[in-house]
C-alpha cells in the first residue's frame, strides 16, 4: 500500500518535471535575448531537474524496495546539489554577461545600470 502510494507520487513528480522541462526549453528556443532566456532556463533546471530527481527517489524506493535505497539516496543528493549550485553558476555567468554589455532586450528599467552610475 505504502509502496504503491510512493510509486504514484514519484511518477507524478517525474511527469510534472518532464512537462516543466519541455516548457522551459521551448522558452529557451523562443525568447529573444539572453536575459530573458535565464527565466526559461530556471524553469527547466529547478522545475525540470530537481523535481523529477525527487520523484526518482520516491519511485526507486517504491519499485525496488530496500534494494533501491542507494538510487534513492543518490538521487536526493544530486537534487540537493543541483538545487544549491545551479542558481550560483547561473548567477556567475549572467554577471559576466552583464559586464560584457550584451544586448538587454525589451527592458523597461535597468537597476544594474543605475547601480553602476
Amino acid at each position, binding site marked *: 500500500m505504502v509502496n504503491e502510494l510512493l510509486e504514484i507520487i514519484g511518477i507524478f513528480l517525474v511527469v510534472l518535471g518532464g512537462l516543466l522541462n519541455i516548457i522551459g526549453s521551448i522558452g529557451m528556443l523562443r525568447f529573444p535575448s539572453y536575459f530573458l532566456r535565464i527565466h526559461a532556463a530556471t524553469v527547466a533546471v529547478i522545475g525540470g531537474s530537481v523535481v523529477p530527481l525527487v520523484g526518482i527517489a520516491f519511485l526507486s524506493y517504491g519499485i525496488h524496495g530496500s534494494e533501491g535505497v542507494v538510487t534513492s539516496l543518490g538521487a536526493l543528493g544530486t537534487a540537493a*546539489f543541483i538545487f544549491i*549550485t545551479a542558481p*550560483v553558476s547561473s*548567477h556567475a555567468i549572467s554577471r559576466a554577461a552583464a559586464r560584457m554589455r550584451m544586448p538587454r532586450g525589451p527592458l523597461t528599467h535597468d537597476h544594474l545600470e543605475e547601480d553602476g552610475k
Partner: protein
Amino acid sequence: MSLKDSIIGISFVALMTAILIYAFLGYPEVGFVRPLGEFYLYNTFNFNEQGWWSASPNAVTGVLWDYRGYDTLYETMVFYVGIVAIALFFEKESSLRRTSGMTVIVRATTKLVFVFILTSAMAITIFSVKTPGGGFQGGSIMAIAYIAIIIALSRGFLPELRMDLSKAHLIKIFGLILIFSLTVIPVAYSLASGTVAYALQNQPKPWSEFGYPTFLGLYSLSGGMVIPIQVGELVHVGMGFTIMFLILTEREGKKELGGKRS
C-alpha cells in the same frame, strides 16, 4: 580556408572513415564472447571453481587487481612521473597571494559545497567494490573540491585549508608508498616464513598460505584488499590534479618561464 587545406582535411577524414569501417566489419556479433572474456567471466566469481577465482563481485576490480596488477601499478607511476615533469618545467616560487575571488554568493556556496564534495569522493572510493567507481574516479572528484576553491575563492585561500604545494606533493607520495607497500608485503611474508605467497594476489588459493581476504577476515565482503589501494590511488590522483591546476594557474610575472631554478 585554402584549397590545399581542404584537400588535406578531406583526405584525412576519408582515411579515418575507411579505417573505422574496416574495424567495424571485423566486429563480432552480439552475444559472442571471446575466449579471454570467457576466462574472466568464468573465474571472477564462481563458487564451484574456487581454485582460480578472484573472489570479487565486481569483474572490473577482479581483472584490474588480480590479472593486471602490475599494469595498474605502472600506470600510477607513469602518472606520477608526468606530474613531476610538469612541476619541474613550470615551478617558480609559488606565491599564494590572497585576492578577492568571485562574488560573495559564489564564495559562500563554494565553501558550503567543499565538504560535501570531499565526502562523496570518499564514498565513491570506499564503496567501489560493488558500485562503479574507484580510485581514479574518486580522486578526480576530490580534485573538484580543490579546483573549485582555487577558482571561486583564490589560490591564497588554500593555506587556510592547511594545503600547500609541498604538502600536496607529500600526500601524493604517501599514496604511492601505500600502494607499493601493499603489493610487496606478500613477497616479504613468503621470504620470511619460507612458505608460498604471491605478489599482487588476493585470491586465497589452496596452495598459498597468504591471501589478503582470508588474512583480514574479509572473505565474503570484498574482492581483496582493494579498499586501501583505492584510497592510495584516491589521494594520489586528487593531489596530482590539484598540483597541476595550482601550477598552471600561476600568474606569469616579469621573469621568464622555466629554466633556471635555484
